Structure formats: C-alpha cells, structure tokens
C-alpha cells in the first residue's frame, strides 16, 4: 500500500494512524446514520470494528442507506453485510466482529471498545447504550434526526458525546424522565419516522469528527462531552443552548462505584 494514502490527513498528528488503527470502535445500527459512519471510519483507517444490525435492506431504505442498491432490496441483503463490504473494500486487514442481533444479545464484544457510536431510533435505546458505556468505560457518541411539523417541516438532529466521568445525557438535558415516559406511552404506535440522507450525512460526519478528535486530540480541545444541535432548515450545527444554560460540571447519575457487571448486594 502506498504511503501516500493517508498523507492528506497527516495533520492529525505524527502517530495518528497508529492511534486510529489501535482503537476499537462500535457502531450500533447500520441504517441511514450508521452506514455513513462506517464508510467514513473505514476511509480514515479504523481497523477494529464491532458492529450490530439485525435488519435487511428494504426498498424504503434506498433513499438514504449508503452502499445499498436496488439489488440489495430485492435480495434483502443484511445491512450488516453491506457494512462489512464497505469496510473490507477499504481495509483488507480490518478486524470486524459483526452481529446480526441487538447488541444486548451479544454485549461482551461491545465492552472491548473504546468508542461506541449509537445510531439508534429511541431515547430508551440511547439510554441503554449510554449505561453500558459508563459501566464498561467507553466514550459514547449518539446521533439522531427527526422531522417535526408541517408548514414548513423542520429537520432537527443531535450529535452527543458522553464520556466516563463527565456529563451524561441526563445532565445535559437531552434525556429526561418526561421524554422517556412519553416515548414509553407511545410504544407500538410510533410509526415510521421521516428520514432523508443529507441530515444523516451531516450528523454522521460530525460524529466521526468527534471520534477522530477523541483518538488523536488533534484540535487540542480535550473535549469530553458535547451536545451539538443540527437545524436542517438552516443548515447549521451549533452547541446546544440547553446544555450551555445548565452550567453543570459533574455527573450525579454515574460513578466509578457502578463500573463493571451489576451485582446483587444482600441487605
């Protein structure tokens, strides 16, 4: 392989390629967001992956699923397979552990990761991933988009970074008991959410940018938490006002006492 391949990203640091190749990264959900994420990670030279998706390609995915073709919808190709093809097409030596299941059915490989990128649909799923990341010491990056209203529709989205020892999604004000309860009350009646490719691309790119910064710290920002708000109608990504106004400095929801496997304590 030519040494020129990564010359354009050498500004990330002298040892950046080594750091990136040693990082084990998980992508949970390989649909509209996750397919973008995996593609970019493979271009950058991430080598170690743990990926989860139990879905297959359907015709309704083709408006946004990167790498999917008409043939995949006819063949009902597993999204996991598409992601592996993308990775191995760029990184032949990659170590990919893929699971056609929910991550909860194969949680152990996730624990080996240093970064988890969650591309999941519900608040509950986000909360569960964040809890796992806190228990087993992993940075968690969450992406999601939604479309609200009709006149005109408003595209919104978020990219959140939650790291062990820093603010969690509850501290930031993103996850609240109300949003979780409202979602639980809608269970089974949520319907298909609107999804388009370009917001997913923006959110995935922002998430990958955070991941690369975590690995290389090329910005020297030492950033360990973030809530970035995407406003699709304005084509902007800005720091969340909610987070800025909270002025929280420490997380009361997770502590080192909660690391590792949950244990039963006799009373």
């Amino acid at each position, binding site marked *: 392989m030519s040494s020129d391949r990564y010359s354009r990203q050498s500004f990330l640091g002298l040892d950046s390629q080594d750091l990136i190749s*040693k990082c084990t990264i998980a992508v949970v959900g390989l649909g509209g967001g996750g397919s973008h994420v995996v593609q970019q990670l493979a271009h950058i030279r991430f080598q170690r992956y743990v990926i989860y998706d139990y879905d297959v390609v359907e015709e309704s995915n083709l408006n946004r699923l990167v790498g999917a073709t008409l043939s995949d919808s006819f063949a009902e190709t597993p999204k996991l397979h598409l992601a592996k093809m993308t990775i191995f097409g760029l990184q032949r030596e990659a170590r990919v552990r893929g699971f056609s299941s929910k991550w909860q059915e194969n949680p152990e490989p996730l624990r080996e990761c240093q970064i988890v990128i969650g591309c999941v649909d519900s608040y509950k799923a986000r909360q569960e991933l964040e809890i796992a990341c806190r228990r087993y010491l992993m940075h968690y990056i969450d992406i999601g988009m939604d479309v609200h209203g009709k006149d005109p529709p408003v595209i919104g989205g978020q990219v959140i970074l939650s*790291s062990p020892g820093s603010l969690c999604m509850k501290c930031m004000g993103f996850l609240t008991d109300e949003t979780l309860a409202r979602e639980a009350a809608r269970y089974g009646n949520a319907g298909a959410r609107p999804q388009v490719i370009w917001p997913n691309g923006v959110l995935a790119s922002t998430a990958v940018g955070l991941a690369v910064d975590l690995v290389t*710290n090329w910005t020297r920002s*030492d950033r360990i938490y973030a809530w970035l708000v995407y406003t699709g109608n304005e084509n902007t990504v800005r720091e969340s006002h909610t987070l800025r106004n909270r002025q929280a400095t420490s997380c009361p929801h997770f502590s080192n006492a909660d690391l*590792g*496997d949950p244990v039963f304590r006799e009373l």
Partner: protein
Amino acid sequence: MSIQFKLSGALYREIMRDLERPHRFAAERVGFVSGRLSSLTGSAKLILLTRYHSIPDEYYIDDPHVGARINSEAITRAMHAVYHGRSTREGIFHVHLHQHRGEPRPSPTDWREIPKMMPGFQAVGPQAAHGMILLSADHAAAWVWLPGQGEPTTSGSISVIGVPIRVFEREVLR
C-alpha cells in the same frame, strides 16, 4: 487467555501525578489501584480500574537496595481494599512507574518482590483478580493473577478512556 484493562483518563492522570512525585528517600513511588473483573467473549477477561490508593510517605522504608520498599501498614491497607471489594470482585494491583519511554518490563526486583503479595490478596479476595501494573512515560503493561491461579497472565492491552484515548498493547501481540 486474553486480559484487557480499562481505566478513565482522570484515574490515569491521578496515578501518574502521584507516582511522579519525588520521595524524601525512596528512589521511586509505588501505589495500589483497585480493579473489577468482568467477562468478555469466551474466556477473555476485562479488568476495569476503579480507584487509586496512594501510599503515604511514612509507609516507605529506607532501603537503598531497591527503588521503593513499603511497610506492612501499606500492605494492610491494600488488603482492606480487597476485603471491602469482595462483593464486586474488586481486586488490587500494585502499580509503579519506570522513568523511560516505550513498553515497560518488570525488573528482577519487581519479579522477586511483587508476586510475594499475591497469595495474601488472593486469600482475602479469592474471586477477584490481582496483580501488578507497570507504567512508563508513554506506555503500560500488566500481569494478572486470576482467581485460583498461582502464576500470572500477561495482559494484552491497557486502554485509557480519556482524551486522547490511549491503547497500550504488548508489542509482541501486534
């Protein structure tokens, strides 16, 4: 048997800061760090380091033949940490710093002295993993006495989950 370690960036900085401090007579400092045993795929293990136990200056013994020697009170404190961590399978790891760059390796003194502590730790916390962690300026390595094991297993990697993320791997495994 694959064993991986993880610790937060904050804990890593706390350990390094403490061990880099000069001592009045000891040539180096040592410490203990608690770690919880979890499972990975197959027989692989994950050890999550939770908190650091700095050793007070007065618990060092002036012995010019070794870099640092600690007294029985320091060992007793480590035993207490193991005792109180039994319900969470939290063991204890002797940690010290070698002042060089690159992958650290135990000195003959390390191999002679540190393993002597393990049977005591295993007696108090038989379900936990115990061992020793060696740090250098930019690397780390660990040896683990798993429950019921009389000999150590070399850890495959130590990940520091901070910014930047650091993944210290044994060069021989790369």
